[in-house]
Every structure is written in structure tokens, then in C-alpha cells.
């Protein structure tokens, strides 16, 4: 019987069937023996400590509960502990990981420590304070590294989708590297910003520019949602704060990690189907027969066309021949404009350290092709974090450098003819782009060929092949901090950081193409175009503070801090456009013609800056570890508001009660923990424009080549902050011993007052609108997060989590002049209704008798006369979701792991503008959906979806469609190679292989391309893609 005398030896014995039999018998015998002597015989216990990814943990502490005997794991994670009483409890702990208790037995095998929520919850990092979780009244959520790292094809903000209750993350495009629209606890602003503040290692970074940040370096993302946490950020905090901490080195040795994954992306399918050639020709013939309208060759050459009947025999023969050959062509234009996008990511990271110094350095290479041709993202990043401690001095240096290259397709999200995204659906199925000699036949050379279609697809293809749109980005986030402990209770700290971005945008149109040879404003003189420009954003922050912290009699715990902070932002852009290119010089300014009036180049650029100075103090008092009150006050001075309102104070108060520590709960085992929190405070949201309060003139007008001057903005000398008052209360409840069921719930009420609102003006004032600070809006909601360990044993753990949030948005006040105003041409701002409420005539279906389109009048009567002004109604729902969330599950069994994430968005409506183009007689010369063939009214009695062909297609409530969705966001299956396999390979401590899929399936009623898109309408946007990858993590 090979007992565990020496690490690993028993694993090396070849296991024959006979051996197994013997082992089995021996084991049973031994088991019986040990049962008999339980708790009496001291044994030698051995095992191995690893993290969840299967990397050995060096220096983990293994303590015998009760006796205090302890040891630590070696560099490969192995440990041996002598003279342990059988069945004693071992506590295995490692800094930064959740401790685990296991029963002592001779061979424990692998023990995996996770960055479990419980561990991460110990401290809430806000950027200014690091309060223990049970001493912070904040409503916050933490997403840990294992959920953020290695997710393919997404920026880190998109990765957070479905992870945090109350945080809606909706992508804006399937373009690789595109940031999402992130909204926490409902939209609180109409003309201001709704984007949260992103802070990485204490440095605020620009939203929407995450393509050059490597999610693999992130250790945690803390989402601050309530006023007591957000008020620390004062005038920048009202939309919530996402505090990101990157990875740090761990004490004890050096660890090298290599991560690699490869994969591909596919186009997801829409819920509408365009006609194929057979259907299209039949459609053209039907329309010709019924309405004598010629939509194309399907009618021109139809035997049912009177011209055919009266035509010569030769004509008829030719007509038959033409239709026959057209039927032989059947193009699915997706094949022309989309592709299977390849993906790969490689990362090497080295980390480690000792007591005084820890470091983490990573290098990452990322290359993702988009599913739309010509799109992609290639990225190189370097991250280097250094932490040191010398006596009373502590410090850190965080450096992130990145370079990315993005390539785009043009016309995404537009309905115009001639762009790749819309041509996929507009182009006719019998349009074959190439002539027999391989020439691309476009509107410029079509007259040399016999062409019967509109060439909408070929024209777009020609454009796609002869132009480029690219952006290079350099991103640097550099920060450092120093702290000094003056007295045991008094410390000072200072921190400074820079967020720098330089984007270089390039676009090029080939002068030798049809697209580049048009003499239009876009390609002056008809010989191509070259644009290049840079956008530089520079943001510097400096924070200095002093903290006093003390405890008395183990009852009173106080912490008070004071800070001074200064933030300065500088934005600079410059660009030029040149014409008259030489086609041999590709994508370079060297090709531009200068000194010619025909090809007059254009230079543009802008500069702006802003600054914020703040004084703040934060205080916390805790009594007996049970009762905590916190308070904060921040006095902000900004260059963005009118001088009279420049300085303003923001405060918050909060309290938390750790009920579990009360005597009446202390001994209730069913309740592992119970905390009750409440907070109230005031914050503000940042203004979009830097000098929005100023009335200004601009010189950007000219007449006859002479520059003039024009009023630009009416300004508003009273322009003020957009204030948000917010109340939050909630609880954290852990049930059953060891907290196997964890429930966290919050309710909140957010009122935005002084809300920016561009009040429309009478045209006679010369301006379209006046910026006012007059609006008021409310967001009320509940959110909860429940997770439970259904099975929890050494070998098998199964965890399930659900989070969801319901938010109700309501406009309370607009302007002194109006209680309702139009919001674009499909929505309305109306007091008492949510922001984003649609305003459309209600669709009353198709009249079965006549086939006419019917609409409801406001009095409920049905009419065939369309009049938006008198029929518009608010019963089509709203653009912003009220119910969002996600659920996840993870299963770990021996060396296998499976993780799954679903995300959902519900009660959200969007304007599907694609139907308007794909099911409209006005655009019927372009391809249409098969509903136009099969589901339109044709004869009296038809109960049809679509009206008679000749009836105008108008915007109505049927275009406002349910964009709710449930998406299988991520599925990850992993396997860590067992230790015995690795023993033969020197220096390798752990290997994990995995496969994962992103956006594998979507359940939705949405008829358009992708329900997940933050645009107010569905208009041929770049859909999110389905990505499959396989990867490998190696630990050296």
C-alpha cells in the first residue's frame, strides 16, 4: 500500500487494474482502521496548495486548528505536516486568498484557494479609503480577476456585463476594441454625461478609450454605487465609480506565467431574412402584375408583362434567357462583406518579491480580426507595478504602456447606400459583383456591361476595397504614490498620476477607384483623399492627504483623513485632409497634391482644457466593531461651471450595523453574517463641454472665400452643476455555516436636480436651444445579488449566482416653459414619463378589406390617414432598460472547471429602423425581406402583417420593438493538468488548458441585427460577434 510517504511517489506508480483492486481493498481496510482510532493516532499530513487556475502557491500557511502547529508550502506548493491528530482541522491560508479549512488526512491532495468574494470583501477600495467591509456603509460590488482575465474579444468594461447588479453594460458596436455604454443605477442625465468615472490604481482615466488597456492585468474592479462612496469623488462621482486595481507581486519567490489563446469569431444571425433570387424575381413579377411598377428584370422580362406578350419571338427568347441566367445567380451578400475573424492573445507575466519589494510585470500581445472585412484590433501592452516598504515609508509605482492599431469599416450604423454594413441587405441577390473577366462592375463601368441591377452591393464593395480607415493609439497610465507613517496613528500620503492618450487617425481613398474618382466634396477634384489627424488627451492628477487613525479600549475606532487634490485636463487635436493623390503612394501624405486650387487641402484642429481643485475630508467612527458611521465632505472648484457657481460642496453620511455581532445573533448558526447599511449624500456629474456657460462667437464661417464671424453659443451665466441626491439602504446576509448562501440587496432613490437641459428656443432667437440647468429626474430601484455554494467539498464545488436590478426612471421637471418636448423625431421628454419614452402613432394593423395601413387616433378610433403630429402617443415604451442582470455558475471537480455566464436586459424598446428600409415600397428596388413577398396584403380578406404594396410606409409603434435579450455571454471549460503529469517536465508548476465561447446564443424577439446596442435606433450597426477560443495557461 503506497501511503503518502514522499510527495508524488505514489502518483508515479503505474496503475494496472490489479493494482487498483489491491489499492481499493487496502483503502477500505485502512479506512475502517482509522475510523476505529479516530482522533487518537498522530499522522503525517501532506498536500499541495494551489490557486484556482492551478498555479502552486508558495508560502501558504497551514495551521492545525487548536494546536497552533504550522508549516508553509514550498515553491511548488507542497507541504508536509508531522504529528497531526487524525481528523483535526487544518486552516490553509494565503495572503489575498480566502482561507480554507480541510480535514486532516494523510494525503490531502490539491487544495485550491480562490480569490473568493469573501476574501475580496474584506476591504472596499474606494481610491481614498480602504475600510474593512464590515466598517463601510457602501453599496458596492467587486468583480475579481478570474472573471475579467482571459475573456476574449472584449474591452474590460464589456467584460463586466452581467456581473454587477444595477450596472447596465451595452456594447456600442461589434468593432473590436469598441467600448461599451455603461450606466449605473439608471440614466441620471439628459444633456450631461451618464458614464461612470473610471479610476485605475488611483488615476482617473478617460472613458471610451479602453482598447489599449489589457484586461489581463486587472486584479479587481470595484463598482461604487451609493452616495457615501461616490461622494468621495464629489463633482465627478454621481454616475458611479469603477475603481480598478491591477495585479501586484506576491511575497516569496518569482513566478512566471504564460497565457495563450487562439480562436475565431463568427457573425451572429439577425431575425429577418432577405429574399433570395427566386423570391426576389417572383416579388418583382407580382408587383409588376398588381401595380405595373417596374422594380427590375423580374418584371421587365416576365412572361406576364404585356411587353412580353406583344414582343417579338426574339425578344421573348431573350427575356427567357435573361431570367434563366439571373436565376443561376444567388448571392448571400454576407459572404462578400463578412468573414471569419481570427483571434489570438499571448501574455507573459513575471511577478514576485520579498517583504520590502514586490513587482508585477506583464507583456501582452492581442490580435483580433473583426467579422466585418477590414476591421480589427492589434495591441501591445506593458504593465509594470512596483510596491515597496522601507520602515515607515511605503510607496508604489504603476506603469501601463500600450499601443494599439484599429481598423474600421465605414458607414457603420448608417442607412446610406454605398457602405458595407447596409449594402449587405440592400444589394439584390442576383447582383454578381464581378464580370466574367474578373472585373468588379460598379456604377462607373456598368455601361460597358449588360447590368440589370442597381449595383448597390458592388458599389459598396468597390468602396470597401479601395479605402481604409484606421486609428493608432498610444496610451500611457503612469502613477506613483508615497506614504509616510509619522506617528503610529498619523500618516501622510501623496499620489500623482498621468493618463495620456494619443490617437492618430488615418483615412484614405484610392484615387484610381470609382469611389475616389468622384468630383464631390468628399474627394475634391476626383482624385482620392487622404486624412490624418491626431487627438491628444492629457490628464494629470495630484492628491495629497493626511490620515489619523486610532483605537481606544478596543471599543472606539476612528479614522479621519484630509486631502487636497488637483486635476488638470488638456485636449489637443490636429488634422489635415489632402486631395489629388498619386495612386502609387498608398496611405501616405506624400501622395497629396499641394499648391492647386482644385485639390485645396484642409487643416483643422482644436484645443481645450479644464481643471478641478478639491479640498476634502473623510471620517469614520466605529464602536465595538458593531456600529460605524462615516461622513465625507468635498469642496470642488471647477473651470467648467459658470464662475458664480465655481465652488461647491458635496457631502455624504453613512452608517453600517453589523447585526451578527449582537448577542442575539452571535450564536445563531443559520445566520453567518448580517450587516445593515444606509447612506445619503450629494454628488454631481461632470459637464460635457469645457466652457458651456460662456456665450461665444466663432470665426468658422465664410462667404465667397472671406472669413466671417457668427454667434456660436448663447451661453448661460447661471450654468450650474447637475446635482444628484441619493439615498441608499441595504443589507448583506450570509446564511448557513460558512456563509454558503450570500444575499446582498439594496434599494435606492436618486434625484438629479439642476439637470442640464437644452431648452429649444423660438427660431427667432437665432439659436436652436438654450443650455439650462432646470431639469429634474428620478431613478428609483432595487438590486440584489444572491450566490450560493450548492456543493462545497474538497473535490467538488458548485456555485450559482444571480444578480438583478430594477430601475424606474422618471422625468420630474423640464423647463419653466414646457412639460413636454420632442426628443429627436421618435421620442419625447415628458414630465412623469421615463427618459427615452417613444413617441409614435400606434399601429392598428392592416385593413383586411383594403390592405391599407391603419393607425390609432389618440381617441382610440382607427384611421388610414397618417398624421404623426396628431397621432403620436407615448405607449411604445422606453429606450432604456428597467430590468438588467445576469446569472452565473461555476463548477469545479478535481482538475476540471466549468464557468458559465448569462446576461439579460429586459423591458427595453428600440426603434428598429432596419425594417423601415427592408420593408418599404419606397426602397423596393433594393432587396427586401421575405415578409414583403409572403406577408403583405394581396387580396381582400388577407390578414397580413404588411400593408398593400403601394401604401406609404410610415413610422409607427410597430417600429418600436422589444430589444430585451438573454444572452449566453460566456462559457469556459478548463482542465488543469494533474501534478503527476508535470513531474516529468522540470520547471513547470502548473498547466491549465481551456476552451471558451463568447455570445454563444441569444434569446430575443428583436427583429434587427443585434438587440445589444446602445444606439437609439437599429440601423445596420456592427453586430456583436460569437467568439470561440482555446487557450493555455502555463505557470513556471
Amino acid at each position: 500500500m503506497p501511503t503518502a510517504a514522499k510527495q508524488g511517489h505514489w502518483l508515479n506508480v503505474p496503475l494496472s487494474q490489479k493494482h487498483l483492486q489491491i489499492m481499493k481493498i487496502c483503502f477500505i481496510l485502512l479506512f475502517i482502521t482509522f475510523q476505529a482510532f479516530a482522533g487518537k493516532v498522530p499522522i503525517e499530513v501532506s498536500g499541495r496548495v494551489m490557486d484556482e487556475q492551478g498555479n502552486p502557491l508558495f508560502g501558504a500557511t497551514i495551521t492545525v486548528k487548536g494546536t497552533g502547529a504550522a508549516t508553509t508550502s514550498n515553491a511548488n506548493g507542497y507541504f508536509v505536516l508531522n504529528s497531526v491528530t487524525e481528523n483535526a482541522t487544518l486552516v490553509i491560508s494565503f495572503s489575498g486568498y480566502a482561507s480554507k479549512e480541510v480535514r486532516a488526512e494523510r494525503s490531502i491532495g490539491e487544495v485550491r484557494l480562490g480569490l473568493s468574494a469573501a476574501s475580496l470583501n474584506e476591504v472596499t477600495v474606494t481610491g481614498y479609503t480602504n475600510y474593512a467591509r464590515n466598517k463601510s456603509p457602501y453599496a458596492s460590488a467587486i468583480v475579481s480577476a478570474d472573471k475579467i482575465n482571459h475573456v476574449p474579444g472584449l474591452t474590460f468594461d464589456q467584460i463586466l456585463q452581467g456581473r454587477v447588479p444595477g450596472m447596465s453594460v451595452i456594447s456600442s458596436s461589434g468593432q473590436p476594441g469598441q467600448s461599451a455604454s455603461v450606466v449605473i443605477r439608471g440614466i441620471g442625465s439628459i444633456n450631461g454625461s451618464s458614464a461612470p468615472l473610471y479610476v485605475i490604481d488611483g488615476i482617473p482615466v478617460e472613458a471610451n478609450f479602453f482598447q489599449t488597456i489589457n484586461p489581463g492585468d486587472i486584479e479587481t474592479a470595484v463598482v461604487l454605487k451609493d452616495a457615501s462612496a461616490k461622494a468621495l469623488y464629489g463633482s465627478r462621482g454621481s454616475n458611479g465609480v469603477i475603481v480598478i486595481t491591477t495585479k501586484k507581486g506576491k511575497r516569496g519567490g518569482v513566478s512566471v506565467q504564460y497565457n495563450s489563446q487562439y480562436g475565431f469569431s463568427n457573425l451572429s444571425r439577425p431575425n429577418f431574412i432577405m429574399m433570395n433570387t427566386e423570391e426576389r424575381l417572383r416579388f418583382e413579377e407580382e408587383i409588376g402584375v398588381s401595380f405595373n411598377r417596374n422594380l427590375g428584370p423580374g418584371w421587365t422580362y416576365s412572361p406576364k408583362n404585356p411587353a412580353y406578350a406583344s414582343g417579338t419571338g426574339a425578344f421573348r427568347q431573350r427575356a427567357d434567357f435573361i431570367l434563366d441566367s439571373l436565376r443561376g445567380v444567388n448571392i448571400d451578400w454576407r459572404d462578400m462583406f463578412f468573414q471569419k475573424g481570427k483571434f489570438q492573445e499571448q501574455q507573459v507575466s513575471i511577478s514576485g518579491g520579498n517583504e520590502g519589494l514586490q513587482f508585477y510585470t506583464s507583456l501582452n500581445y492581442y490580435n483580433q480580426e473583426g467579422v466585418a472585412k477590414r476591421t480589427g484590433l492589434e495591441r501591445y501592452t506593458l504593465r509594470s507595478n512596483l510596491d515597496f516598504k522601507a520602515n515607515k515609508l511605503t510607496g508604489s509605482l504603476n506603469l501601463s504602456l500600450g499601443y494599439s492599431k484599429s481598423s474600421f469599416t465605414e458607414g457603420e450604423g448608417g442607412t446610406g447606400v454605398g457602405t458595407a454594413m447596409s449594402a449587405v441587405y440592400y444589394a439584390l441577390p442576383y447582383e454578381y459583383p464581378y464580370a466574367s473577366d474578373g472585373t468588379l462592375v460598379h456604377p462607373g463601368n456598368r455601361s460597358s456591361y449588360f447590368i440589370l441591377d442597381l449595383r448597390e452591393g458592388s458599389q459598396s464593395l468597390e468602396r470597401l476595397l479601395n479605402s481604409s480607415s484606421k486609428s493608432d493609439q498610444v496610451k500611457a497610465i503612469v502613477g506613483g504614490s508615497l506614504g509616510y507613517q509619522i506617528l503610529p496613528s498619523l500618516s501622510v500620503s501623496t499620489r500623482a498620476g498621468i493618463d495620456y492618450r494619443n490617437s492618430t487617425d488615418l483615412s484614405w481613398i484610392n484615387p484610381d477607384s470609382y469611389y475616389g474618382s468622384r468630383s464631390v466634396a468628399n474627394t475634391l477634384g476626383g482624385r482620392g483623399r487622404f486624412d490624418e489627424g491626431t487627438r491628444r488627451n492629457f490628464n494629470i492628477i495630484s492628491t495629497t492627504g493626511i490620515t489619523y487613525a486610532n483605537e481606544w479600549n478596543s471599543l472606539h475606532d476612528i479614522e479621519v483623513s484630509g486631502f487636497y487634490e488637483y486635476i488638470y485636463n488638456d485636449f489637443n487635436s490636429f488634422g489635415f485632409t489632402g486631395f489629388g493623390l498619386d495612386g502609387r503612394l498608398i496611405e501616405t501624405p506624400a501622395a497629396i497634391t499641394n499648391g492647386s486650387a482644385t485639390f485645396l487641402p484642409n487643416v483643422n484642429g482644436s484645443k481645450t482644457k479644464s481643471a478641478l481643485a478639491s479640498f476634502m475630508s473623510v471620517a469614520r467612527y466605529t464602536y465595538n466593531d458593531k456600529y460605524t458611521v462615516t461622513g465625507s465632505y468635498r469642496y470642488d472648484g471647477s473651470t467648467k461651471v459658470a464662475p458664480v457657481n465655481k465652488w461647491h460642496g458635496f457631502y455624504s453620511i453613512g452608517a453600517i450595523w453589523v447585526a451578527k455581532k449582537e448577542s442575539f445573533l452571535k450564536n445563531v448558526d443559520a445566520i453567518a453574517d448580517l450587516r445593515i447599511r444606509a447612506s445619503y449624500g450629494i454628488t454631481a456629474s461632470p459637464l460635457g463641454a469645457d466652457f458651456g456657460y460662456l456665450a461665444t462667437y466663432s470665426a468658422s464661417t465664410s462667404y465667397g472665400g472671406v472669413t466671417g464671424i457668427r454667434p456660436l453659443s448663447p451661453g448661460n451665466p447661471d450654468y450650474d452643476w447637475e446635482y444628484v441626491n441619493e439615498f441608499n439602504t441595504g443589507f448583506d446576509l450570509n446564511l448557513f455555516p460558512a456563509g454558503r448562501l450570500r444575499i446582498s440587496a439594496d434599494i435606492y432613490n436618486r434625484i438629479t436636480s439642476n439637470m442640464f437641459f437644452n431648452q429649444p428656443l423660438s427660431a427667432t432667437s437665432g439659436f436652436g436651444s438654450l443650455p439650462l440647468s432646470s431639469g429634474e429626474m428620478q431613478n428609483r430601484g432595487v438590486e440584489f445579488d444572491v450566490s450560493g455554494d450548492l456543493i462545497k467539498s474538497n473535490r467538488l464545488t458548485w456555485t450559482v449566482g444571480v444578480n438583478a436590478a430594477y430601475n424606474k426612471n422618471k422625468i420630474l421637471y423640464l423647463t419653466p416653459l414646457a412639460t413636454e418636448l420632442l426628443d429627436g423625431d421618435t421620442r419625447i421628454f415628458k414630465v412623469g414619463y421615463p427618459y427615452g419614452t417613444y413617441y409614435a402613432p400606434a399601429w392598428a394593423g392592416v385593413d383586411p378589406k383594403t390592405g391599407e395601413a391603419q393607425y390609432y387616433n389618440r381617441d382610440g378610433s382607427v384611421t388610414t390617414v397618417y398624421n404623426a403630429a396628431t397621432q403620436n402617443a407615448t405607449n411604445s415604451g422606453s429606450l432604456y432598460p428597467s430590468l438588467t442582470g445576469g446569472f452565473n455558475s461555476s463548477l469545479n471537480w478535481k482538475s476540471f472547471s466549468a464557468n458559465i455566464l448569462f446576461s439579460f436586459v429586459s423591458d427595453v424598446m428600440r426603434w428598429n429602423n432596419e425594417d423601415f428600409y427592408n420593408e418599404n415600397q419606397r426602397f423596393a428596388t433594393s432587396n427586401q425581406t421575405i415578409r414583403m413577398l409572403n406577408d403583405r396584403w394581396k387580396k381582400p380578406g388577407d390578414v397580413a402583417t404588411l400593408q398593400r404594396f403601394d401604401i406609404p410606409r410610415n413610422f409607427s409603434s410597430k417600429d418600436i420593438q422589444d430589444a430585451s435579450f438573454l444572452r449566453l455571454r460566456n462559457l469556459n471549460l478548463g482542465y488543469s493538468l494533474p501534478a503527476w503529469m508535470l513531474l516529468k517536465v522540470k520547471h513547470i508548476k502548473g498547466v491549465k488548458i481551456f476552451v471558451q465561447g463568447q455570445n454563444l446564443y441569444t434569446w430575443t424577439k428583436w427583429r434587427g441585427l443585434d438587440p445589444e446596442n446602445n444606439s437609439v435606433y437599429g440601423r445596420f450597426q456592427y453586430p456583436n460577434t460569437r467568439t470561440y477560443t482555446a487557450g493555455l495557461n502555463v505557470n513556471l
Partner: protein
Amino acid sequence: MINKFYKQYSLLLVLFMGALSCTKLDLKPTDSIDPEKAFRNIGDINRGLIGAYAAVDYTQISISSTISDEATFPTENTVGNSDAYRWLYTGSSGSVTALYSDYYRGIDRVNRTLDALDKLNFTEGDLPLANRYKGELLALRAYFHFELLRAYASSYKSGALGIPYMKTSVVGYPARDNFETVIANTKADLVAAKALIPSAFTDKTRITLLAVPAIQARVALYEQNWADAITFSTEVISGAPLATRAQFPGIWTDANDNEVIWELKRVGTTDSRAGDFYFRQTGGIVLYAPSMKLINTFARTNDVRFAAYIRYDPTRTGTKSQYLVNKYIGGTATAPGLADIKLFRTGEMYLIRAEAKADTGGDGAADLNALRAARITGYTNEIFRDKAALIDAVYTERFKELAFEGHRFYDLRRRNLPVQRLAIDAVNASGAVTLLPTQAQYALPIPASEVLINKNTVQNPNY
């Protein structure tokens, strides 16, 4: 011990001082101009005036082509919106309401510049120039208001709903002035302008002393003040004779500017291109084609206007329109569609005088025949049997002479005539053949946004 404390606190002090020193909150914008510095001198007044000229564009031309009978919406236009062509517009239709805010924006620029001009003190040397600028500004203000009146008045009669006449730059919510009030204010501004602009100023791209009576003549036509119409048109005709037949085509390629009284200069690479309204270069799509109704009125070979206005291209086959609007083709091959926009021509003055004389029993036929003779090779004078026939002939001549110059729709309205299209011109308009004066769309709608926010205004009837 004390020493150590000093060290520590001085460190603290240094940290705070260092942090505080970088406080700077007095930032100023670099990319916009402070209103206080917008008008410093006579040069800035001209810049303000240039800004106001920049607000004038070809919108009236596009509106009239879209909703009158001079153009058709061809089958090949699969990229446009035929709703306005089918008279389906409402206050939410930008195609017919954009002019409202565009021209009030121009008026506001005028009023701000006028206000600044009155506040500045000019040197003796600058004074004549300041007077001229003031004259141009006043005339421009009158022109903007009058164009708005043509477009948005409920009708052209006393008591009809007009538009607010803005004499100062103000954020307000004015009610609509009556038709006659707008006319009176327009006339007053023009009279004032006439006294300020020197005759030596002859830049046709701006308002000259000759342009003022041209505007006055058009105002008089809409006011049906026939005496004024005759007086002012005569003033213009005597100052600027008709172009010869040889010169005529060159007007439209900007080779010459004969008989042009005032035109909008279109140069460079960013100015609007009127030709783009009719023809899209990318894809080679005719967006609006001359109507057969218009084409049929021309003697193709003898009338110099036909080739200048309309291009026939037999190489365009299938659903492609063979007729194209040629008027705004522009003079350079490298910038097609970039053409000066002629706002006032002597040809219009002849027709105004002809109509005024015809209506008052004068010799309108003389002016009509004179114009035809200048346009048509081998023309022989026509004799008209009565006043109605003469006015009818003047109307037909206006249809031809002023096609695609932003007149036709308003000319029909002046005499309460329906817009009547040929069936062949309405094949893509689902039966939009006739627009009766009783229909709401016969008067353009005030923008819905204006009606919503300005409680003192009212929409035109029946919208």
C-alpha cells in the same frame, strides 16, 4: 525627539505646499471668441456681415423644385425621400421647415452686427464704409424676412398670418406678424438701406444699390403694389440690361455675370453645391429631373434657355432619367455642381414689370416680347387677346425663365393656382398630381418645434 518631529512636520508642509502650488482655475477658452471682443472695429462689422451672407443658401430653390411642377422624382432616385415631393410634409419635415430656422439665424446675425455697429465710434475715414455695411445689413434683414414670408405666410393677403419681424437680437417668443406688417417693415428697411449704399459699390456677390430696388420690385409683386413694382423693376432694368443670347449660357457656367443683380458666390471646397440637390455624383443618380411639363414648354433648338437649363443625355438608358437639370452644373469639371446662386436677374424684372403692367392695363406685352426676343432665336412678337391671356403668358414665361430659381411654387400661390403635375411626372409619387389651394400643404408648415415651444405662435391652417 523634537528634531525628529520638526523633520516630519516640515516634510508634511512641503508636501502640502507642493500640492497647493499647482492650483489654477482661471482657464479661458482658446477656440472661441468672447462676445465682448467679437466686434472691435469696422473690420469686425464686415466679418459679422459676411457671417450673415453665409446664412443665405439655395434652400428656396430646393423647396420649389420639390413641391412644384417644375421637377420630377425619377425612378432611379432610390436614395431620396419622396414624401415632400408627394406633399406629405408636416411641421416635422425638415425638407420644408429648415429654412425657417436657417433664415432667422441669418436675421439674428444681422441684428447683432447692426447693434454692434451702432455702438462703435468710427473715424471720419471709416464712416462711409460703416454706412455701406449698415445699408447691406438692413437690406439683408429685409431680404431674409421677405423670403420667410414667401415660404411661411398662410397666404399673400392683408390680414394673413405672416412671420415675426425681428429688429433686435433677443431670446423671445414672438407672435406672428400679419402679412402686411412684414411687408411694411421690409419696405422700411429697404428704403433705409437705399440711402446708405453708395452707387460706386458694384460687387454683385453682395447687396449693391441696384440690388435694393430688385428686392423692392419683388416685394411689390407679392404685395400686388403694381405701381411700385413698375417703378422698381424699371430702375433695375435701366441699370442692368438683359444678357445677349451669346452671353446667356455663360451666366450658368459662371463665365460671365451679365444681367445678374445679386448672386451668392460659391467658391472653394466647402461651400454648398446647388447642383448636388439635383444630381448625386457618387453612383451617378439623378435626384430630381426637369418635369416633362417644363420640358414641353420650350422650343428646344431656338430657345437659348433650354440647353442652359436642361441637359438631354440619350446615353442614359433603362430607368435612368435622360433629362437632367443643367442650371447648376457649375463651371469647373473638378467641382461639378459648385455654381453661384443667382438670386436676382434682369429677366425677372422684365417679368415683374410685364405682370404689373398687364394687371393695371398697361403694355405688359412689350416687356414679355422683349424678354422672349432676347432668349429665342427668330422670335416674332406675340399679340395677346386680353389681360388674362397676357397674365397667363407671363406666368408660363416665369415658369420657363425662372425654372429652378425658387419661384414656381410661390408664383402659383400668388394667384391661388393649384400645383398641377402631368401624370408622367408623378409616376413615382403615388398619385401626387394636384395640390389644391385648399390643402394645408399649399402653405408651408411652421416647424413643429417652434409651435411646441413658442406658445404665442400658431401653425398654418389645417396642419
